């Protein structure tokens, strides 16, 4: 073993360092962001640390490397924050290009500075060996392991799966993306410092585009949905050349060819990365979930929940919603019906804060509507919703979907999880209890472990409702929840909705199934061409001639869409 450690000391160290670098990509990929700035951030961290690392331990006790790491991580995080301010609004390939450009800017800048040695590079003392590198990797891996099951970790995964749905569950998407960005910067800075103080030399050209791509490949090959992924990726890619050398593959083109081929196989057959090979650990707590926690009481029946006055929305020249007045009081089940294109979805998007109104005034759960009000604020204030097109976090389990829904009513646990405080575990169990109660409520408790994307259409509809309920909403908005359900299922849903109302939840229901609306709701509002053409109790609406003309005349065709 000692001989092995000696002969492969550098490979073993690189395995750890490459792993750390891959974690800096994992940090953003887990939130669905493709950033390529990490090489530049690592470079900035490494060179800045060279300016401050003292010749002897600081104050005689703080090791030199610790000083370097602290500064490198701080520089990486700070630069990532500054970069994040302008680029955080970008997505996908645009974000990748912007961050790539940033990395190039850093490289050009550093190469033209005399304190970095320019293209000649800079020598560093050797302060890193196997123990330091692996300790750093262990700390980073531990961080991401504990992050995984925390409220923050779930929120990041939710953003990765569906940003809009995450927003609707009360997650501040911009802030969370920035958190992942800054974390990535800090880890990248750590990598830069460790690398420079291990290989004893760094030049700005070594932190270019190809370095960034290498890091990205390592993270993706390992897998971006499980904390162990980057470690697997670095194991795979670090040992591949060594392995080929050991089994005597002739030096030359055949080696990169074989490496490329294996990489291709992994990507083709393991889209989830090497981490997909690891069987999912079952959560022990699920056998005996706690009872749902005591949550603050919902508003007393009759309390005003939403009040809209002359609300308008125009898209170009199209008036999707015109001068709509709408009042919803606690305890009501308000049905919103109207033909296709009547403006129903636009109206609920306004109510839930996803779309700012073009004109008019409105207050929802105490929050005034307007362009400056982010959707997550309204969600946090107590508005929860489902979507016409199902928006689940498909790769997360049904239970995790509902746990994200509980974001609003659970407390941050990451820092307490880091130090293994029992109170964090209690909070997690409480959130689990809340989530399980909702799954049971919609009849999905036995499918809690399945990925949401694998559920049947009807189950996905019900899961969305469970997720919305987990937020303990004051106002629950259901956008065509019965679409695709048969008579029996629609009836069960109707029973569930009335039971919710009895528990004090106010419901705004959009539905094409008019029979169901009439049987469920306490009040019905009819929209046509963006205007309210009738409102009242179900019996009155069913007889209103304007409604019959505009909409109910087609009841036979539309009552039960296929």
């Amino acid at each position: 073993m000692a001989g092995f450690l000696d002969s492969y000391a550098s490979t073993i160290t690189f395995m750890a360092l490459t792993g750390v670098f891959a974690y800096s990509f994992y940090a953003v990929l887990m939130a669905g962001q493709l950033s390529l700035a990490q090489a530049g951030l690592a470079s900035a961290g490494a060179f800045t640390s060279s300016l401050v690392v003292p010749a002897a331990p600081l104050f005689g006790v703080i090791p030199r490397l610790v000083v370097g790491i602290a500064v490198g991580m701080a520089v990486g995080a700070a630069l990532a924050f500054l970069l994040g301010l302008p680029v955080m609004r970008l997505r996908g390939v645009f974000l990748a290009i912007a961050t790539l450009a940033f990395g190039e800017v850093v490289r050009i800048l550093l190469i033209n500075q005399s304190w970095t040695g320019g293209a000649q590079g800079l020598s560093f003392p050797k302060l890193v060996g196997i123990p330091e590198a692996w300790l750093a990797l262990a700390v980073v891996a531990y961080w991401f392991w504990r992050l995984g099951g925390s409220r923050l970790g779930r929120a990041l995964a939710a953003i990765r799966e569906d940003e809009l749905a995450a927003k609707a569950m009360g997650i501040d998407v911009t802030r969370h993306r920035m958190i992942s960005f800054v974390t990535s910067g800090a880890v990248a800075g750590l990598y830069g410092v460790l690398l420079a103080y291990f290989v004893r030399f760094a030049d700005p050209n070594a932190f270019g585009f190809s370095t960034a791509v290498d890091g990205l490949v390592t993270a993706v090959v390992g897998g971006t949905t499980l904390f162990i992924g980057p470690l697997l990726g670095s194991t795979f890619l670090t040992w591949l050349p060594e392995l080929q050398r050991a089994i005597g593959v002739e030096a030359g083109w055949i080696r990169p060819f074989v490496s490329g081929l294996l990489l291709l196989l992994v990507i083709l057959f393991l889209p989830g990365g090497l981490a997909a090979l690891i069987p999912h650990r079952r959560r022990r707590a699920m056998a005996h979930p706690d009872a749902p926690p005591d949550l603050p009481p919902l508003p007393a029946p009759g309390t005003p929940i939403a009040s809209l006055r002359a609300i308008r929305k125009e898209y170009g020249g199209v008036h999707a919603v015109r001068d709509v007045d709408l009042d919803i009081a606690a305890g009501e089940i308000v049905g919103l019906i109207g033909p296709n294109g009547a403006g129903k979805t636009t109206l609920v998007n306004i109510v839930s804060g996803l779309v700012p109104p073009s004109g008019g005034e409105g207050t929802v759960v105490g929050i005034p509507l307007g362009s400056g009000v982010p959707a997550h604020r309204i969600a946090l204030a107590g508005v929860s919703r489902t979507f016409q097109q199902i928006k689940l976090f498909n790769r997360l389990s049904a239970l995790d979907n509902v746990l994200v829904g509980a974001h609003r009513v659970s407390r941050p646990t990451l820092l307490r999880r880091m130090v293994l405080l029992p109170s964090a575990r209690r909070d997690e169990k409480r959130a689990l209890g809340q989530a399980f109660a909702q799954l049971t409520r919609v009849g999905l408790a036995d499918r809690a472990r399945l990925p949401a994307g694998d559920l049947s259409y009807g189950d996905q509809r019900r899961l969305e409702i469970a997720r919305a309920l987990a937020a303990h909403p004051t106002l629950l908005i259901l956008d065509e929840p019965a679409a695709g359900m048969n008579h029996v299922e629609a009836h069960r849903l109707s029973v569930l909705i009335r039971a919710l109302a009895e528990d004090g939840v106010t419901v705004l229901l959009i539905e094409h199934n008019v029979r169901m609306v009439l049987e469920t709701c306490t009040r019905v509002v009819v929209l046509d061409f963006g205007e309210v053409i009738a409102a009242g109790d179900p019996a009155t609406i069913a007889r209103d001639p304007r409604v019959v003309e505009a909409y109910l005349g087609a009841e036979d065709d539309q009552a039960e869409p296929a």
Partner: protein
Amino acid sequence: MRRLSGSIAGAAVLALALSACGSGNTATTGGGGGTSALKGTGTGDTCKITTPIPIGAVFSLTGAAASYGESQKKGLELAAEELKAKGGVTYDVKIEDDATDPQQGIAVFEGFVTKDKKSLIIGPTLSNTAKQTDPVAQEGKTPVLAVSNTAAGITEIGDYIFRDSLTEGAVIPQTIKAAKDKFGLSKVVVMYSNDDAFTESGYQAFKKALDANGITITKTITFSKSDTDFRAQLAVAKASAPDALITSALIEAAVPLVTQAREVGITVPIIGGNGFNSPKLMAGAGKAADGVVVGAAWNSASSGAENAAFLTAYRAKYSADPDQFAAQAYTGLKLVDAAVRAGCSGEREDIKKHLAELKDVPTALGKFTMSATRDADTPAVVQVVESGKFAVLK
């Protein structure tokens, strides 16, 4: 599908695990251990060592610097063949690839030093890789002979690091001196790419040599190694009417730079660093290359019996002309042989001792002496392009 993917990945993981176990066993079977197997009897040409001397070579056979590494490999293999035919002392040369990646270079160096117990390591191809790999050998007390590193700060890494490649700092003063004698330079414009270690150190050497020769630099213009359009900078250069244009650039930039300089009407001599020392210059720039002055560590037109023999043997084996990289790698192993024979020992310490004492060894690079700082002391060749060919500047 799921099963297939599982088994493929399973196989990959298994293979990794196996390699981790297997490699432990292959360690320490080399000729190390400090026994006398590597010591022989006799001295010089009569030296006889029964065990082949284990030599490791690290070149960039793939990746960005692959074209250099390929030449080095050919030169080295030719030398090993010739030494084997000569007999007495043979060499077990293991050539490894660093894939132009310093991390792999470090791993290979470590294997050579610790596991394979090589008596000496030749390489690596690039200077910036050497700055990361050579400390590993220095710590492991394994001599290294660099055969292509030209940057400053390589042999300073430690007393086990040697090189046979002339630095820019050694070639360029001779180039400037010869050019001054020939063209009577008094003021020049300097252009260089400042984002490459090699060209940047070339610039430093030029500046020092120009100052030493009392030549005024009227303008210093920088560009990036990836640039291809220099017309704007060349117009600025032309405006100050220099006696010569001094450039430090890689061949990729050198070709368009020289071509465009002639286009904008710069007719004075263009003096280049080692980056210009490539047949690609004439192939790419054509007639525009005429009048370009290049200093080099080696030129095929150099005189000397060793160089003539090298050229003949190389052409016979590879049916192609060698370049400077092949010549330096070829010479490298010949120098190692000279050091081994001097002490009739393939032990690391003995090779180190006798490499440092090499003096006036006739080689393809000319008469070779190892300087006190373990650097090459050989004459540079100052060439000028005439009718599309390098000729010695007289």
